[in-house]
């Protein structure tokens, strides 16, 4: 690469930010990564160039020149380089490398996962829009899937498929699109089981006085597209009122309630991308200083306003979810262009409303739909390439944060864990995969990313076993209830996410992760369950072989057995991944799970050994017959033991859940 002047610098010190401890090593610069190898421990630190957000070159420091790298993953690296010339070369190279000029210079176009078993095509077709529509039960009597945007003629930042009222004519849609900012007309984003929908769009070009008959008719059509048509629908403007009013002067603005009939208009006051950008920067500044006093810290967090913004986003989403789920009214959501705040709130509402979006597959599909297909401008917002700094904003980070807040309040309702959020967040910024490049579906098609780069989804699907939340209710109790998650309205519950923003500052993080133990525990229980099933099967086999028409006991057993069996049928596919982990020599497995299981494991061992010798015993030999009957008679006893263990386990599980809920609350 032409930008790399010095590919290797020796005698570099990597300084730990808080302790001021440092390690000496060698710094390598490759086309895609910055690599630091610790001379003593050979520990390697890899940094993708695109993760670098700012490079700072503080003036003279003792012992050489310093280079401070602040990363999009909230890591801060300080290098001390002995030669000023080297340092300057590095600085200018990195400046160029971290901000490529075109999309095609990004790492994704050269990335090749040699070591991993990942094919280029893998993952690209995983979450198609059509599938998501089908999942919601579309088309219905009132809603259809339209191909009108197949050539991006209706709106160039929308996906090819859009879901619109079945009575909407192309003319009506074209008319509506013409009246909306960036032609982003109202299209359906989520259909709830009670027929109410969330519809998203951009602001109307209402200005001070203009109107569009088509748009008015189209919006009213949306309201009526229900079995039980309601007397009014909500239009949620996620902006503060003052911003919306200011937009009117530019010929944009908001729907006039005089001309749009039967709507209830609400301004819900989420601040714009610039406010969010400043807010997170302030928060991160506060994060860097870990020696400050409690009140300085609280003050800094408060003045950054980040928690307030997250709370606000959650509250707006809660309002939408409640309107749809509880009141059964349709909601039309927009902000200015309908790709930042609208994406956040629509996606969060969907998570609150539908259990499907709390599974791994559902969640990723939701991101594919609400963020990628509907044109959240990832290239601009994440600053993938060199461009206007004012276009960048941590909108997606904020969304991830909000999801984490939900996970914290409802620890048993999500199939996935924090790790998924971290991986997702980091790879949105890493540009290692093509998935999050480009600003909209059309742009991604133009660069033919699906053919030239790898998909993050494919990569993530290979590691689903690390994403499983062991406390996930649906997998454990096989309940399929459609419970809504409505977070509390008070601001007390929104908490600073230390594991995200101080992720690279190990000293601050909790020292132990209970989830490993829980996962371990759960695997053990599953193993036991399977063992019991196997034993039962063997017993039944034995009984049929012997022709024992048995007493009430087996009936009881069958009854009991049916529960775990049902269990297995109902468990969604990812559990299989989890079961796989039991056989894999995982890091978790190294730990001894004994303490929690002390009473059960020793007892559960013998039954496995007991019946196996009896199995091959042929019933032909009369002499051993007695023995067989004896062992067969004994095995229920053993089974009962295992069952008791199992019950104890399950009881423990219940405790575990309540305990974890308690902990988290």
């Amino acid at each position, binding site marked *: 690469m032409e930008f790399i002047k010095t590919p290797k610098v020796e005698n570099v010190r990597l300084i730990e930010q808080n302790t001021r401890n440092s390690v000496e090593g060698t710094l390598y610069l490759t086309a895609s990564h910055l690599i630091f190898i610790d001379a003593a421990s050979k520990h390697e630190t890899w940094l993708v160039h695109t993760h670098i957000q700012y490079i700072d070159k503080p003036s003279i420091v003792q012992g050489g020149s310093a280079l401070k790298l602040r990363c999009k993953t909230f890591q801060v690296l300080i290098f001390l380089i002995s030669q000023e010339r080297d340092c300057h070369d590095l600085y200018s190279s990195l400046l160029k490398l971290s901000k490529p000029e075109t999309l095609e210079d990004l790492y994704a176009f050269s990335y090749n996962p040699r070591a991993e078993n990942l094919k280029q095509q893998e993952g690209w077709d995983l979450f198609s829009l059509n599938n998501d529509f089908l999942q919601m039960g579309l088309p219905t009597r009132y809603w259809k899937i339209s191909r009108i945007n197949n050539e991006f003629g209706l709106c160039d930042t929308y996906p090819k498929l859009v879901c619109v009222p079945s009575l909407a004519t192309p003319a009506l849609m074209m008319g509506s699109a013409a009246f909306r900012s960036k032609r982003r007309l109202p299209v359906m984003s989520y259909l709830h089981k009670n027929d109410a929908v969330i519809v998203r769009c951009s602001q109307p070009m209402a200005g001070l006085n203009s109107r569009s008959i088509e748009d008015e008719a189209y919006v009213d059509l949306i309201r009526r597209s229900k079995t039980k048509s309601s007397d009014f629908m909500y239009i949620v403007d996620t902006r503060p009122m003052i911003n919306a009013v200011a937009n009117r002067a530019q010929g944009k603005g908001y729907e006039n309630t005089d001309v749009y009939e039967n709507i209830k208009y609400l301004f819900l006051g989420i601040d714009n991308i610039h406010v969010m950008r400043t807010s997170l920067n302030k928060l991160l500044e506060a994060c860097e200083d870990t020696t400050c006093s409690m009140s300085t810290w609280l003050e800094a967090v408060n003045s950054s306003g980040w928690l307030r913004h997250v709370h606000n986003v959650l509250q707006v989403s809660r309002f939408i979810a409640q309107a749809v789920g509880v009141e059964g009214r349709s909601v039309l959501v927009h902000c200015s262009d309908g790709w930042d705040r609208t994406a956040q709130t629509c996606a969060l509402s969907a998570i609150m409303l539908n259990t499907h979006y709390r599974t791994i597959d559902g969640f990723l599909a939701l991101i594919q739909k609400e963020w990628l297909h509907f044109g959240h401008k990832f290239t601009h917002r994440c600053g993938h390439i060199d461009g206007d700094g004012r276009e960048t904003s941590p909108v997606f980070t904020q969304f991830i944060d909000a999801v984490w807040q939900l996970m914290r309040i409802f620890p048993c309702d999500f199939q996935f864990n924090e790790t998924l959020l971290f991986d997702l967040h980091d790879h949105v910024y890493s540009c290692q995969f093509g998935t999050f490049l480009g600003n909209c579906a059309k742009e991604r098609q133009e660069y033919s990313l699906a053919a030239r780069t790898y998909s993050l989804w494919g990569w993530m699907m290979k590691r689903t076993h690390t994403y499983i939340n062991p406390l996930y209710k649906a997998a454990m109790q096989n309940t399929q209830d459609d419970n809504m998650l409505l977070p509390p309205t*008070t601001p007390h519950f929104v908490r600073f996410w230390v594991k995200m923003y101080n992720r690279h500052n190990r000293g601050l993080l*909790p*020292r132990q992760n209970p989830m490993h133990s829980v996962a371990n525990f759960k695997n053990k229980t599953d193993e036991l369950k399977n063992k019991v099933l196997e034993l039962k099967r063997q017993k039944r086999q034995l009984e049929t072989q012997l022709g024992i028409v048995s007493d009430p006991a087996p009936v009881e057993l069958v009854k009991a057995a049916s529960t775990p069996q049902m269990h297995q049928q109902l468990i969604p596919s990812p559990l299989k991944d989890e079961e796989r982990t039991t056989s894999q020599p995982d890091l978790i497995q190294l730990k001894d799970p004994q303490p929690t299981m002390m009473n059960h494991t020793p007892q559960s061992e013998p039954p496995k050994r007991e019946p196996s010798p009896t199995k091959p015993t042929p019933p032909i030999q009369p002499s051993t017959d007695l023995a067989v009957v004896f062992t067969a008679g004994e095995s229920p006893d053993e089974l009962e033991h295992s069952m008791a263990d199992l019950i104890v386990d399950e009881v423990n599980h219940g405790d575990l859940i309540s305990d974890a809920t308690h902990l988290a609350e």
Partner: protein
Amino acid sequence: MSKEECKYKDQQLLMYLLSAAELYQPNSLTGHHLILYSQDGENKEYWILHKNVDSVEKRYSQDRNALIFKCKNFKKYQLTIPSFEDANNICSSVEALSCLGKPSLQYPYFYRPTFKFEEDGFDLFHVEHEFTDLCKKSDQWRISSINLHFKACKSYPSQVIVPKLIDDRAIEKSAEFRQDGRFPILSYYHTNGRVVMRCGQPMTGTSNKRCKEDEKMINIILGPAHRGYILDTRTSQSATNARSKGGGFETEFNYPQWRKIHHGLQKHKVQQESLIRLVEACHDQSTNSEKWQSKLESSNWLSLVKETLSAACLVAQCVDKEGASVLVHGSHGVDCTLQVTALTQVLLDPLCRTMRGFLCLIDREWIKAGHPFASRCFHSALSNQKTQMEGPSFTVFLDCVFQLQQQFPLAFEFNSRFLCELSRHAYASQFGTFLCNSEMERRQHKVQTKTVSLWSYFLSEEVLPLHLNIIYESCNGVIWPSVAPHSLYLWDG
């Protein structure tokens, strides 16, 4: 210790009580409880211990008379009572009954346990047991019965562990020299042979009085070659100020082997004010996010927690990493001193992180050590009374343990619910454990024979499983928590 979560629950409850007021036979007052029961067939009953009532607020209007009972566990109950007279009567009775001063009239003396217990909690933890354990590690100590009749120190237990080489006469002298007679005694013996001691402040006064026996006693702990630290839980300013009232601190000149560290912790009064502000902030329904955060900040509660934790970490570091013994004292040595010494042991000693060990720790470092529970917990945060002796020292300690639990979820045998229960019982309880201010008072009121111990309850077969952390994995050794403000947050259990 219930803040937010309970708040939500209470909201529902409150609504329920309000809407179903007619269904409720107003209430019946017993000697120790306020009992509400519904007549709508649900047979729900609410029992509120009088002592748990912090204050009663009257809201009389034309059509209804509302009484709001504010409890020490931060719950609020609202009752609507049709008759004005009734309401007034109930109010005044509850107010009188909630502030009974005399221990022997209180509920623990009337309570008869409904659970089976194998062990009597009062007999569970003895200084002799502790001493036998200690003897296995070191022969430098002995049990002194100097305080058998509480002459040397009113707030100490009858038997304490002191250095072997110091005789009772010297101790007597040292006791005279220390605030309230709280002479230096052993608090914790670490595996590396270093110790944590605690005492009251020396009464040096402005004239720099000294006491040879006290100096000898403290120096002998160290042995010839070692150095030690004296952790004063006051700032150096307030320690100096204390001299004008006869108190003071050890001078380096008289205690040459010791280095002084001042780590300013707030007094119990300030802590109480902080708690009041915090609870107020938690109960405020109307706050938005910004206000809530600034209220949280101005309540200063998290600072208290952080400072207490870092003081304990400091002591733990001195003992474990630097191999130095530490003497901890503040002014009286019954609040901050105990917070620090108890917390240090939680950090250093894995045994203290087990259920039994933790109970033993509380028994030894709080109850026997003379933390004045009766005075400190007389009122809680929702009282209208001006605070005098009240202070949530114990609650702060429990909050610190909670923070440790968050950072080390596997290291504790008990869960956070257990900590809440402890806090609740410290304020109002059917058990005698937290009654009175010192062992002497408890002896006078015959607490041991006439009431039931909370420990018996906690260790009984029915109750024990409720408070166990089921993912406990005993971990040996010291735990080093993070005390950066980023890692601490509000305990909302």
